[in-house]
């Protein structure tokens, strides 16, 4: 492990992070509100620290070569630092004076979770609100990937960072060059975001609300500028547009890239996309029926709430149009389950991811099949491609670790005095980067009342969930630090 390239990269990364705060700064200047100075200061601190760090640790060679260990360290440390520096505006402005709250809020932003500790969102100035949504939008495609796209010195080293940050069991490059791949992904991301922004404007949203909501929908984040989230708009059109864009964001961006390049076949044939859309369909139908039979008389409304909530939860966005903690238990259980399934690999969604669920199910079927044909040799296939054994093992390992962390964190939360539903849902929702929980922290409330230690545990869950466990946990084993 070489310290200089790591610190140098982290410094460069913080420098860029500071620069991104120019956008909310411009916004608060435009509105002439009280948060101007908090951004000026934050930019100074963040970019200053970054500048000093990278200048002080400038390595001799031009291109930095990173080992995969350094890749893991940079990505994990980068995210931990980002959540701290990104929280500066909240603390300086006074929206969230306590470090714990600011850290929780920013981590929730960057990891696209959408769980919040702010009780009166509408009272905040525009700049802060925009920064809050921007953390999600940046974190959605990946702040590190953004750096890879921009930083020229990360030649081959970018590969290690890419692997550590992009979700999903198999990471493929779209184009031969790493930086070009990162750039392509970001371009696709920006194009779809702009399309969504325009569509939301047609729905009668103000430009400010539209940009905030499309940022959070594309990142599958779930922050809103309203206390009652998307329910505030009470518009079927807006619900529809957001559902569409949440689903798009919950699918593999490689597919979107290929679609934009005119490759319809891959899109149509992709078994993960089919599984993802199929799950949405089935869950929506079940919840619609449940709501129609037990809560609402109007089936149209039942469908609208169901499809919105299902899309919002499975893509791990976390927007709400109705307080689902008041829904029948059947619907709640389905939503809780969806929190674990999550979006597709290579999407901005979180949780276990459809492809892993699909592979685990296939592996299960394979074991049953082998009982019938003891001599059979079978391969787990995705579409027509065989999934290599080591990928399969890593998927199973991920699945087990994910559940282990969920269980351990739930136990820890209940030790802090929270009830079972609250603890479990809080962990599921943060680990899966969803947002709203059940029990005490249901969609109509926030996490502001959670115990301080609980907030740190949940922040950790968000980080682990976003970086797909391995990247963070690998830092915790002693083997990692041995020379």
């Amino acid at each position, binding site marked *: 492990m070489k310290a200089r390239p790591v610190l140098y990269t982290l410094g460069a990364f913080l420098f860029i992070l500071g620069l991104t705060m120019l956008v909310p700064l411009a916004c608060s200047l435009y509105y002439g509100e009280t948060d101007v100075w908090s951004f000026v200061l934050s930019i100074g601190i963040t970019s200053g620290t970054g500048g000093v760090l990278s200048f002080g640790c400038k390595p001799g060679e031009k291109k930095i070569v990173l080992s995969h260990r350094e890749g893991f360290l940079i990505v994990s440390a980068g995210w931990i630092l980002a959540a701290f520096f990104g929280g500066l505006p909240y603390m300086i402005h006074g929206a969230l004076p306590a470090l714990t709250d600011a850290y929780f809020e920013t981590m929730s932003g960057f990891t696209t979770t959408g769980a919040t500790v702010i009780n009166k969102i509408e009272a905040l100035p525009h700049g802060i609100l925009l920064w809050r949504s921007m953390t999600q939008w940046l974190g959605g495609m990946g702040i590190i990937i953004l750096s890879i796209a921009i930083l020229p010195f990360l030649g081959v080293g970018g590969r290690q960072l890419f692997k550590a940050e992009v979700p999903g069991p198999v990471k493929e490059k779209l184009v031969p060059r790493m930086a070009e791949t990162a750039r392509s992904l970001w371009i696709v991301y920006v194009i779809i975001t702009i399309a969504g922004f325009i569509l939301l404007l047609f729905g009668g949203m103000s430009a400010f609300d539209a940009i905030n909501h499309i940022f959070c929908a594309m990142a599958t984040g779930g922050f809103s500028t309203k206390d009652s989230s998307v329910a505030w708009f009470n518009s079927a059109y807006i619900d529809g547009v957001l559902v569409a864009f949440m689903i798009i964001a919950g699918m593999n961006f490689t597919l979107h890239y290929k679609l934009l390049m005119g490759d319809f076949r891959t899109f149509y044939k992709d078994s993960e996309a089919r599984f993802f859309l199929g799950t949405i369909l089935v869950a929506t139908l079940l919840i619609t029926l449940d709501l129609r039979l037990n809560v609402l008389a109007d089936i149209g409304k039942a469908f609208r709430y169901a499809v919105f909530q299902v899309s919002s939860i499975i893509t791990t966005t976390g927007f709400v149009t109705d307080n689902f903690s008041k829904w029948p238990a059947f619907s709640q259980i389905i939503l809780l389950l969806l929190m674990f399934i999550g979006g597709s690999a290579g999407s901005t969604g979180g949780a276990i991811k459809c492809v892993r669920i699909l592979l685990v199910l296939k592996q299960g079927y394979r074991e049953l099949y082998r009982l019938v*044909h*003891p*001599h*059979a*040799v*079978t*391969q787990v*296939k995705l579409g*027509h491609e*065989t999934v290599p054994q080591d990928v399969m093992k890593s998927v199973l390992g991920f699945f087990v670790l994910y559940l282990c962390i969920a269980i351990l964190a739930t136990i820890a939360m209940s030790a802090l005095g929270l009830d079972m539903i609250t603890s479990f849902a809080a962990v599921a929702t943060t680990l899966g980067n969803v947002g709203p929980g059940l029990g005490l922290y249901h969609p109509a409330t926030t996490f502001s009342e959670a115990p301080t230690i609980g907030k740190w545990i949940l922040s950790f869950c968000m980080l682990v969930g976003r970086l797909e466990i391995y990247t963070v946990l690998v830092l915790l084993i002693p083997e990692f630090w041995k020379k």
Partner: protein
Amino acid sequence: MKVIIIGAGEVGYHIADSLSREGIDTVVIDRDEERLHEISEILDVQTILGSGSSPEVLKRAGMAKAEMVIAVTDSDETNMIACLLASTQCRIPIRIARIRNVELNGDCSLFGTDRLNIDLCINPEQEAVSNVMNLLEFPGAAEVFSFADGRIRLLGFQIDPGAAVIGKKLTALRAMEPGFKVLITAIVRGEKLIVPSGGSVIENGDYLFAVTDATHVRELLRFFGKNTEPPRRIIIIGGGNTGMMLALAIEKRNISVKLIEKKHGRCELLASRLEKTVVLHGDGTSQELLREENIEETDFFIAVTNDEEANILGALLAKQLGARKVISLINRIDYIPLVSRVGIDGVINPRHAAISRILHYIRKGKVISATPLRDEKAEVFEFIALETSEITNRPFKDIHFPSGTIVGAICRGEEIIIPDGGSVIQPGDHVVIFTPRSAIGELEKLLTVKLEYFG
């Protein structure tokens, strides 16, 4: 007429055999000295030691004067290069290559005149597979050949003990089922090929060749007491190229298929290539494994391992355990008379299939198709009747056919005619004619179509 054959493997050897016997100058090139020595002992051909993809070796083989090059080494790449050299350096008019890679086979543009310039690509395994698929379609038959774009079929099948037709004369059969478009072209009894006449009697254990139009195949087989139920469960042993292609073709038809292979690594490859096939790791001749996989409920057992003795024994074992039909892959002609006697229902012979395809291609003139049958004792031709030919515009009873030669079917536009003594061939008809090898020369004169090879 001179032909260069590159590669003295099984296919190369037998093509050389066929060609040299027809009086064509044949040169065989191979890198294995011993093998060449062996060949020059048995066949009347010239042998040259060296690589087929070397211009120098080809020059020594007299490429400048050759009219055809047939590249059938084990390596697709060598075959392609040899053909490329043949076309660019000496302009040999006909280039035939064995291309085993299925992916390459599909891509015709690669072999076009402005590219590699190969006239015919043959894939023995694929030919064999398509033969098996024909058999699966008509499970009662042991051989099925198609003519006139598949509208006319020639079937070979064995008469089972207890069939209703045993002991009956052919005239009596015709009376039983008048208007039935079928013609028995030959009866094989033991080793002998019998030319049937109206008075011939069908005996138990006879092997019949019959021509019919494609729509009547099932009726024909049912008439001779054969099973015509399409198969539902198939077990293949041997996961080589043939086995894999076979499994692919079968699973596409939604028939349940199990494939048994010995090598575990190969099993994994098979499992990843095949979609619905159950890939089993184990010995295909193990009773325990076969029982475990329900051999007694299996309609077809197909043995296509590399070891032909194992194929024969495996097939016999499967039959013993209750498989309805068993087929083995056998390359050695020597074994073929044996198999039907011991109870194997069908033979896959990739080499035979490849030779048939090559003969089909290189027969000259108006001959469209030629298929060697039954240890190459007989051949079936499909040709287009000429105005000038002696057999055109005259009733059959006035034509003096060579002994054993039988016109099996006539295809006139949309119509399929199974001829009798009064039939007349008109110019432009597609005619399917069955002839013993000994009569080919005589037949040639009669047809005024040269049945010789290109040249």
